[in-house]
């Protein structure tokens, strides 16, 4: 296909991916990679490289708003980034040695997991939360706005478990070029019992740093193509800005159901294609 229409097509697809990613909180990467590989027949390695770029762009763009609102914790983020960046470098090194068939199957499984997680809503804040004695020593305890001008204090539990899960999230991110926000939220919300709003915003804040850790390796390996990076980066950015605007008016519950089904279908298709060696 000639460069101009192809670029327009990628740009339109990336805008859609960014919009859906922002509306559902799952990020653009989980839609972008299947779109590029299954629909536009881009090699999985180029798709992963392009996705990584989109992930850094959206994370940095969105984090700018979140950190100023005071929900995300700079300390929890930085502490856990030790685990995610190590995982990301490890994952990126694995990616260059893993056959694309296996990558496609792993990606499919992550999609299925993301779909499952977005169906099963998060437990409500305000439940009984335990805390590790290390929570204060590592200065991970903090507070977040309750929406009525007050602050809700919280502490952190099961730090080792959360740290290990974060290493896994980093590895997936480096391996698949996604932000793996779903796994990061799992580590903070479910394992470490950090309030959901703090978990999601801190996760978003961390995603860019995790992705940057493996970007250098991808650049050097030639996974990042300028012809793809250009429409993908700009498209996803514009899409996520539009998505954030729409979020105020959109019926998120309906949207989430549709999105879950789409993710589910894409996940199955990635696994089938990977299994049959079509990617």
């Amino acid at each position, binding site marked *: *296909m*000639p460069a101009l229409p192809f670029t327009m097509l990628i740009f339109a697809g990336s805008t859609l991916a960014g919009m859906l990613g922002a509306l559902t909180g799952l990020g653009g990467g989980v839609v972008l990679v299947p779109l590029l590989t299954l629909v536009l027949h881009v090699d999985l390695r180029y798709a992963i490289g392009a996705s990584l770029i989109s992930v850094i762009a959206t994370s940095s763009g969105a984090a700018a708003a979140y950190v100023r609102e005071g929900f995300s914790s700079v300390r929890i983020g*930085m502490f856990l980034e030790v685990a995610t*960046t190590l995982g990301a*470098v490890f994952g990126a090194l694995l990616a260059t040695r893993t056959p694309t068939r296996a990558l496609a199957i792993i990606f499919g499984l992550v999609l299925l997991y993301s779909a499952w997680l977005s169906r099963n809503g998060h437990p409500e804040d305000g439940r009984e939360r335990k805390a590790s004695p290390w929570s204060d020593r590592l200065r991970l305890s903090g507070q977040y706005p309750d929406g009525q001008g007050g602050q809700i204090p919280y502490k952190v539990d099961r730090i080792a478990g959360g740290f290990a899960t974060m290493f896994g999230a980093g590895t997936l991110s480096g391996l698949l070029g996604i932000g793996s926000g779903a796994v990061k939220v799992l580590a903070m919300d479910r394992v470490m019992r950090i309030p959901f709003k703090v978990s999601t915003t801190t996760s978003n804040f961390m995603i860019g*740093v995790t992705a*940057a850790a493996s970007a250098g390796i991808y650049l050097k390996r030639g996974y990042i193509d300028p012809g793809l*990076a*250009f429409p993908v980066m700009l498209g996803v*950015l514009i899409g996520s800005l539009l998505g954030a605007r729409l979020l105020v008016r959109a019926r998120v519950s309906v949207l989430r159901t549709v999105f879950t089904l789409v993710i589910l279908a894409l996940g199955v298709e990635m696994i089938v294609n990977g299994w049959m060696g079509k990617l």
Partner: protein
Amino acid sequence: MTEERRPFDDQRMDAIMGRLLQSGVLLASAVVLVGGLLYLKAHPHTSVNYRTFVSEPAELRHPGALLREVAAGNAAALIQFGVLLLVATPIARVVFAVIAFAMERDRLYVAISLFVLAVLMFGLLHGV
């Protein structure tokens, strides 16, 4: 949390970090946009094929060579330079965290941030 006023606290750090990330993304996007438009203008009808993986040419994969290509007016190199700026944005935020925690005299978090920075630099420079 104590209510004493400190010249530099986590809230100020958050505000500056937000601005830093925003500016980085805007700058990188602007460079990529210019590079992309030049790229399309240079070859609008060239056929593209991403079906098979061919690693990018060497001059686009190393920062030094990349800058020479940008200076020579290579549009693809300009896009990659924008991508590098984008990658530098979260790294700059970690560098800023090191400085901010040092100003708060939080030695533990200076060490943690420095470690994260070291891993990032390893990934960026070593590349394996």
